[in-house]
């Protein structure tokens, strides 16, 4: 199965495993613009886009499903706003910002972007992010892209006046462009800043609630309810949305082992690992790495792995591993402790290197380099977790 096929299959499952059959039709009955994304699939792709949105942006469904939401962004999209959206995803909370999006033909326009997570009721995990887009029709001067709830939004000193005074005449003419749109500008020109009205903000919130109602209703029949607010604390071994997204960028075969849980279970497995071993994600999560052992696996290697974890050292072991179909391969497994922001070990990463595949990859990187780059990328991703707050004044 090609990569694209398996990704589409995951996208289908994203909905099918959670909601009953007619959910897409029900969502299509809503005449609003919105997208639904799944952070647990590599690339954080769109799993649903409403008919209205597709029409507004002039895309077909096939062009959009499976892509990341940033395909709608372009040069004039404020980078700080994009970063704020990313932070909201990291913190698994909602956000409402003004954002410049682009249609398929490249024309930009302002819209109010209202995003909110949808949680699993029982396990507290983020199932999807729902993003409502309301085009902003009234043009008002605002502070372009600043989060509307930002308390400093009142401080909107625009320095044009003082800047123009002291500068020579040539520059004044240039700066004049800042305030008014250039008369020779083409249709791609757009205001620097824009702010949604209260009406538009309320509209976005209402649309979200309608969507949530539909999703909740259709999750009842599968018994895997969703809700708009987190009702339960996710259990140990929970991989947050942002960690999922960061790890999804790494295209090598690797797993994360939680050394604090009994049995040293695998709590994350990359797509490449699943492809290498032939297992499905749900078959692997929660099991010990020994699941890959078989007839010829040296039993001492199981103890070796345990010992490495106990010693909290990085190490490489050569072991025979077995796929789901019982075929075997020599695995040069590199294990390394991975620490989070507290400085303590959060996980162990195990990166597989199939010894038969000794060729350079398409970039000319050796397999050993790829293996180490995986370790580095995982370390960077996990380092952002569990950052404590506070200045202790005891």
């Amino acid at each position: 199965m090609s990569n694209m096929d398996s990704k589409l299959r995951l996208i289908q499952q994203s909905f099918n495993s959670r909601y009953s059959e007619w959910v897409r039709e029900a969502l299509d009955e809503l005449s609003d613009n919105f997208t639904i994304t799944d952070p647990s699939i590599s690339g954080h792709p769109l799993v649903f886009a409403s008919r209205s949105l597709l029409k507004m942006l002039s895309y077909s469904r096939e062009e959009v499903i499976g892509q990341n939401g940033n395909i709608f962004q372009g040069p004039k999209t404020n980078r700080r706003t994009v970063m704020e959206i990313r932070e909201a995803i990291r913190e698994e909370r909602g956000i409402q910002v003004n954002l410049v999006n682009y249609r398929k033909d490249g024309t930009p326009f302002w819209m109010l972007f209202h995003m909110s997570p949808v949680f699993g009721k029982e396990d507290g995990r983020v199932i999807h992010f729902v993003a409502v887009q309301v085009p902003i029709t009234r043009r008002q001067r605002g502070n372009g892209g600043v989060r509307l709830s930002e308390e400093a939004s009142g401080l909107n000193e625009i320095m044009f006046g003082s800047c123009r005074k002291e500068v020579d005449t040539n520059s004044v003419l240039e700066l004049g462009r800042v305030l008014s749109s250039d008369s020779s500008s083409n249709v791609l020109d757009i205001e620097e800043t824009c702010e949604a009205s209260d009406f538009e903000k309320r509209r976005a919130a209402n649309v979200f609630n309608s969507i949530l109602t539909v999703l909740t209703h259709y999750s009842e029949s599968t018994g895997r309810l969703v809700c708009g607010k987190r009702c339960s604390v996710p259990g140990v071994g929970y991989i947050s949305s942002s960690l999922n997204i960061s790890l999804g960028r790494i295209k090598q075969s690797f797993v994360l082992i939680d050394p604090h849980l009994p049995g040293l279970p695998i709590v994350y497995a990359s797509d490449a690992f699943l492809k290498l071993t032939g297992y499905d994600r749900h078959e692997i999560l929660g099991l010990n790495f020994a699941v890959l052992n078989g007839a010829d696996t040296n039993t001492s290697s199981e103890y070796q792995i345990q010992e490495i974890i106990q010693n909290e050292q990085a190490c490489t072991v050569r072991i025979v591993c077995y796929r789901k179909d019982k075929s075997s391969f020599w695995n040069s497994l590199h294990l390394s402790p991975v620490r989070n922001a507290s400085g303590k070990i959060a996980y162990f990463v195990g990166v597989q290197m199939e010894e038969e595949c000794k060729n350079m990859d398409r970039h000319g990187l050796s397999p050993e380099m790829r293996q180490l780059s995986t370790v580095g990328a995982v370390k960077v991703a996990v380092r952002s977790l569990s950052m404590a707050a506070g200045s202790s004044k005891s």
Partner: protein
Amino acid sequence: MVSVKWLEDKNFRTKSRKSKQLEHSCLFLQGMDFPIYNFSSQSLEENTSFEGMSCITGEEQSMLDAVLLSQWEDRMLKGYFKYDVTTSEIKVITGKMKFLSQLNEGQITDHQFKSEGKKLHEFYPLVFDCMKHPEELLFCLASSKKAKSELTPSADVPDSAVLVIINVTPVEYGHVYLVPCFSNKLYPFLDARSIEISTRLAAEINNQSFRMFYDCYRPNFSAVYFEACYLPHPLPVEFRPVSTFFGGGRRGIHICSIIDYPIKTLSFTTTHNLKILAAAISEICSHLEEKNVQYNLMISDSGKRVFLFLQKTCAASRAISAWECGGYFLYADRYEFDQVTEDAMLNRLSSFSLDDCDFEAVKQLCCSIASKFDV
């Protein structure tokens, strides 16, 4: 215990060269082979605009990102760092700014310049003795005429290259020095070319955590160098509200001042041409140096955003690092780390900051220089 095989085919003939020559030329590298990463001609083309380059954060780790991370991790495994920086604790300081602080006990014990009761870190000199520690040079960056970027595992260092050297007392994972060499000489001052190369590097790495820093105050190493590392979180300054005072021109240069932040800061972005933005920033910086205004640069968001932190003109040899300007503070002492407050950090930053009057002058300077380039 590690049995990772790395490319063993680095062969070099050692020659006796005084390390003093390090200050002025790259000839010391002749005769040694290192991995060379060649930027494609597309990356460095005159008119490459952002419309061409992806605004999209890659769905996949880029090749340069993989090269840097793998080389760094390789040196980690071989024990070339003084300590494992990921064991240090990071926390958010309570308050509106959400400043970050790190308890890094490892740095101070090995520091050559012992602080005289100072709690926060001073600068670390770039000390690279290639004869004793060639392994500290991870690889070199160079340009090429080819259509695609590529990695050559082992080759002579080209005349014009950027050396990527590990910082053995890192501030975060992946901490390296980037030292541009041009015609075998190190740069004595910051210019458009070095800023442009740094921004290209950040864009090619295409990793949201990767940030580059430049401090104009470098007491121990006069040649130009940048620093870079993978910061797990964006720096507090990146979230502060902004006010645009220059923009809308043909070349898409935007300049904003950061509002409600204790140190005077400007942020530069472009919707079009990276090269032009780099040229504008470098001219602004050389004017600042003429007027003795100390400054720091930070390149974030994969090269799309450049911050300029403005410090007081100072006769005394005091300055703070770029990451401190951004709101990330290091402590060597557990007690100090626990006691830090936002107010103390606000005071620290404002004490170094350029004052309001001079800040206005700098903004006007930026407007006039940017409008020259923005045609």
